[in-house]
């Protein structure tokens, strides 16, 4: 039971978890990313590559399903204008095994940071705006999932 959605609108974490809970796994790990107010940030514009985004995310999910015994995966990634406190991304994974659920969830969010075609432009209270730079710690986070 795989569900991947790329959408402008918000989502309901409780409803997403409820769907995954119903799949019979004993372990359900999830991650939600939200817009923080760091440095006076007001909102951000999340741009993406419409023709490619869904299949890029689906490929990442397929890799997770290949590596871990998963009963269900849900990924939602928003785009468009997002203000402080808004949800950006949801990852939920259910498995019979706790470690599999936790690891696959971490794998997916790490890969979404570096392997899905999204770009964030932040706007601040003082009028500044900037494109978020990719950061080395994200590359390092993904590097640990590269199989020998």
């Amino acid at each position: 039971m795989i569900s991947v959605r790329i959408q402008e609108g918000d989502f309901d974490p409780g409803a997403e978890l409820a769907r995954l809970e119903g799949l019979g796994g004993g372990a359900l790990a999830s991650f939600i990313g939200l817009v923080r107010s760091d440095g006076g940030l007001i909102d951000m514009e999340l741009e993406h590559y419409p023709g490619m985004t869904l299949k890029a995310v689906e490929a990442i999910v397929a890799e997770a399903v290949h590596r871990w015994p998963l009963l269900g995966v849900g990924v939602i990634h928003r785009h468009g204008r997002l203000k402080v406190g808004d949800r950006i991304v949801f990852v939920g994974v259910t498995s019979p095994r706790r470690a599999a659920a936790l690891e696959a969830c971490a794998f997916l969010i790490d890969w979404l940071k570096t392997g899905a075609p999204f770009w964030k432009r932040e706007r601040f209270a003082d009028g500044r705006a900037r494109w978020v730079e990719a950061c080395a710690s994200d590359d390092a986070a993904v590097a640990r999932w590269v199989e020998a």
Partner: protein
Amino acid sequence: MPLELLYFAWVREAIGKGGESVLCPDGIDTVDSLIGWLAQRGGGYAEAFADRARLRAAVDQAFVPLDASIVGAREVALFPPVTGG
């Protein structure tokens, strides 16, 4: 055959549009050479493509390194490193 180019994030902003259709001259057969050819147009193109270390690419909607071939490609996208999640 025309090649569809797509620009995202600050590459799009520097160039001033989200994409265009181009006919590549002979010899433009990798992403790298395509970037060099576009940069020669000057202005926003020169600005967008000044530092290749800050550029990433997808050919026909798959991420590729900059030395990848574009022979036979229908769509090439040029953009900064992604920052999703």
